């Protein structure tokens, strides 16, 4: 644990050269070097319009960095944000997660916690239902500290246990916040055990939320989502119903949560 932390810390420091609080143009354009971003964009020329990412400039715990991404946009059938994608340019696997939104999401605003292997630029891409793209970036310097060493005490018996917070009542036409957390180690697939063997990837790879049968939100997670995946999103229910949520991990294990939502 010790040495891994140290290595991360050093890599982190090394990568931070040239970073400053006022992000130079070079890093603002970092996404242009990111293959998966270019693939996603195709020929589209994105703008940063309305897309906002909150990420601390410095993190002392690179294994759980709070991230919120939001788009200032209507969320109606005619005009809404269709998907949001997150990338980290220096993670072993740059794709962090992707979210598919619907008008039922009510607000294009998602919070989660991510892992960064070193100091780097996080890229968010949003796509509207009209095929327009938004891109924004945030730099995060990872500064591990011996004073903040974490205890990796994972108990497999807790796997797939979840917590949710769903509003019982929502005023018609308004949206409400939904919180979810599922216990899971989110084994990255990049770690080695004591004998030098690679520990296979074992993550929760998907999350879905439906109001009755209608999709609200779908999320595809990658290794860069922190252990015990955490998700905060919005819901604008047009009518009373049941919010059904489901997670699935690489072993095919699923967890299902249900909560009644009343519209008043």
């Amino acid at each position, binding site marked *: 644990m*010790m040495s891994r932390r*140290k290595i991360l*810390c*050093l890599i*982190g*420091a*090394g990568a*931070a*050269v040239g970073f*400053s*609080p006022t992000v130079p143009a070079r890093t603002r354009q970092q996404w242009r070097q990111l293959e998966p971003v270019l693939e996603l964009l195709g020929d589209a020329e994105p703008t940063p319009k309305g897309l906002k990412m909150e990420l*601390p*400039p*410095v993190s*002392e*715990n690179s294994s*759980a960095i*709070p991230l919120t991404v939001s788009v200032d946009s209507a969320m109606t059938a005619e005009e809404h944000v269709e998907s949001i994608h997150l990338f980290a340019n220096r993670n072993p696997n740059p794709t962090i997660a992707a979210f598919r939104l619907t008008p039922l999401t009510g607000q294009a605003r998602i919070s989660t916690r991510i892992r960064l292997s070193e100091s780097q630029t996080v890229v968010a891409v949003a796509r509207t239902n009209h095929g327009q793209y938004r891109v924004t970036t945030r730099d995060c*310097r990872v*500064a*591990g*500290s*011996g*004073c*903040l*060493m*974490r*205890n*990796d005490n994972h108990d497999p018996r807790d796997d797939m246990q979840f*917590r*949710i*917070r769903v509003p019982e009542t929502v005023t018609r036409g308004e949206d409400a916040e939904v*919180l979810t*957390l599922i*216990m899971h180690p989110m084994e990255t697939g990049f770690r080695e055990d004591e004998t030098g063997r690679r520990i296979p990837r074992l993550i929760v790879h998907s999350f879905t939320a439906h109001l009755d049968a209608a999709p609200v939100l779908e999320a595809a997670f990658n290794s860069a989502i922190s*252990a*015990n995946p*955490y998700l905060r999103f919005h819901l604008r229910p047009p009518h009373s119903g049941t919010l059904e949520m489901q997670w699935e991990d690489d072993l095919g294990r699923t967890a299902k949560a249900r909560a009644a939502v009343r519209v008043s």
Partner: protein
Amino acid sequence: MAGVPISRRAVLRFLGLGVAALGARGFPAIAGGDGGHVVVVGGGFGGATAARYIRRFDPSIRVTLVEPRARFYTCPFSNLYLAGLRSFDKLGHGYDALRRIHGVDVVPAWVEDVDTVARHVRLRDGSRLAYDRLLLSPGVDMDWQALEGYDAAASEHAPHAWKAGSQSHRLRRQLEAMDDGGVFILSAPANPYRCPPGPYERVSLIAHFLKRHKPRSKILLLDAKDGFSKQPLFMEGWQALYGGMIEWVGLSADGRVLRVDARRREVETEFGARHRAAVLNVVPPQKAGLIAHRAGVTDRSGWVPVKPETFESRQVDNVYVVGDATVAAPMPKSAFCANSQARMAAAAIVASLQNRAPPEPVWANTCYSLLAPEYGISVAGVYRLIDGEIAEVPNSGGISPLEAGSDFRAREARYAQRWYASICDDTWGPRG
């Protein structure tokens, strides 16, 4: 100081003292003696150390320390006071030695504002102090916007006691008045905040107090983190010393407090659990002290980014900032780090006033935590500049071993006491 002949030094010292003794509060136009004038704001571990060491490194520099309180009460060891193991008075340190022995001009005043263009600070009485270099050691302020229901008024019912003073007394009185069998709740914030192991030392020492005086009581530590400083050592110690008295609830177990009802002494967590306490101690999220914001050295994080080689502000020239207010990760926000950063910043300021390059920095940290009066643990680290950023020296540092004998823990507890005496002496000079 390389190369300045002793005799000239003696003359400079004499001149420096002379100017300092006259005081320049009424003469804002005169920026300093022949070595320059440094104004230091804040008389805690960072500010007092910097003032002393600037004078030590170059006595021709006039140093004015602005600190409104006659005595500084330390956060380190204030948990001992909460547990009834140390008198509050023994946490206090005055400025006589800095004045008498080190020739620092100590001005008891509040700094209202800083004009970093005209290079002066404005005191509450309207007078101004001109500076050649400014060093801020503002410490932290509680972020009253960060936690719903928790502001200055709420802290009178549910104290934070994260600055030693009236808040500490309030919490101590509440603990004394608590019924046996009550629940003490501490809500700990996410990083970064002052003193990473502080909340865990606090519940340890309060458990020590409760075990002796109110043994049926419980302690609930609600945490906005999934891991914390010296965690395995604390967990081991809690089990050995206090059995099941302390329950820790981390972030993923819904430990993050989002709402406080201070009058009811009730908190609500992220996923909606409510906990009611007999004594509620809320350690809220924090930010750099007010004067740092006034001086324009803070960034969107609420903390102060500094150039690591000197601890000069990244945003404002000639303003240096040390201690808890800075973004110095991986160095923690500790008294030891503030003292270490201040000594380096003092050398950098002296070098800058002498038109020399700053010295190559090396910093250290040692944080002792007491789980009981005879049970101490530690974390230590050495830090240097690696590729332009502060980094822990590879293969150095670390925490006390797990499963060490009671003699080892007792020794670290004694060292903690000794450390406190030494660092306070190094910061404020010998106690009068």
